[in-house]
């Protein structure tokens, strides 16, 4: 029994890993202090804060996928989305609040990819919380400079004839990419199509799943 009698090994036979927790940072302490003060002073309540956290967690990429699938199947909606994506998605029940939404359509001529170089602006009403890599310095700085290399690392290699359009989400607008509808999906229902729409395909770092992979 090679793993017996070793105090530094866990019952699984592997070494214990050090905990990766650390003391609260300055800004974490600040957030707790401000939150507790707001509650103490009656500006908000702990229940309200929990409700907001739940509302934030309830948003997820299936909302965006429903929008994309409808754009693929409903020409009038696609038109409305082009004209005013905030209003078109609000009508589906995905309110973007005070921000404005722009839908960017991918075609064989152009591929759109979204980044926020200043922070982490993201269409949370359609996609939920951004992935950690979206907020990383590497993604934010490289996407505006070498988007094709970044795309290739995500597994997307585009021909020279497809123009890459990077959208830096710097101010009041939020962006959702409407990927091109996969071939071989003629006659599919919007619900089935939505299953092909990935989060990354709506950021522009990925493509929808192939219909064979459904």
């Amino acid at each position, binding site marked *: 029994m090679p793993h017996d009698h070793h105090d530094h090994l866990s019952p699984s036979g592997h070494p214990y890993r050090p905990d990766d927790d650390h003391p609260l940072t300055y800004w974490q302490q600040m957030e707790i202090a401000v939150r507790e003060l707001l509650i103490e002073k009656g500006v908000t309540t702990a229940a309200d804060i929990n409700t907001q956290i739940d509302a934030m967690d309830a948003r997820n990429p299936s909302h965006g996928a429903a929008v994309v699938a409808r754009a693929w199947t409903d020409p009038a909606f696609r038109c409305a989305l082009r004209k005013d994506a905030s209003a078109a998605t609000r009508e589906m029940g995905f309110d973007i609040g005070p921000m404005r939404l722009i839908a960017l359509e991918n075609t064989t001529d152009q591929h759109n990819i979204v980044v926020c170089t200043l922070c982490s602006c993201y269409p949370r009403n359609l996609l939920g919380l951004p992935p950690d890599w979206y907020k990383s310095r590497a993604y934010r700085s490289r996407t505006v400079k070498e988007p094709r290399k970044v795309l290739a690392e995500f597994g997307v290699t585009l021909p020279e004839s497809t123009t890459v359009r990077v959208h830096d989400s*710097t101010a*009041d607008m939020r962006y959702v990419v409407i990927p091109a509808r996969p071939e071989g999906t003629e006659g599919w229902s919007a619900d089935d199509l939505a299953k092909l729409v990935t989060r990354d395909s709506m950021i522009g770092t990925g493509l929808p799943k192939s219909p064979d992979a459904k």
Partner: protein
Amino acid sequence: MRDREYMRVRSDMPPGHVRTPSYLRGKVGWVERTLGPFENPEQLAYGLKGDPLPLMRVRFSMADVWGPASETPHDTIDAEIYSHWLEPAEAPNAP
């Protein structure tokens, strides 16, 4: 092409909350569309009333931002720039 409205982003580097990415300052692009008005975030950030400003989506070619050595010169970067950061400009020479 001929109808493009070219703009240069001011190359100032003021302190404080500014939503104009520094990698675009001094660069020339064209107005893709005009949005807004939205309140000036440089005032809102300090609890002041924000002046309503047009917000331009400016499209830059990779070549105009990163020079001829850019990854693919005709690819583009769009960014939202508040109008007070823009001044009219001539078309750049890049493709």
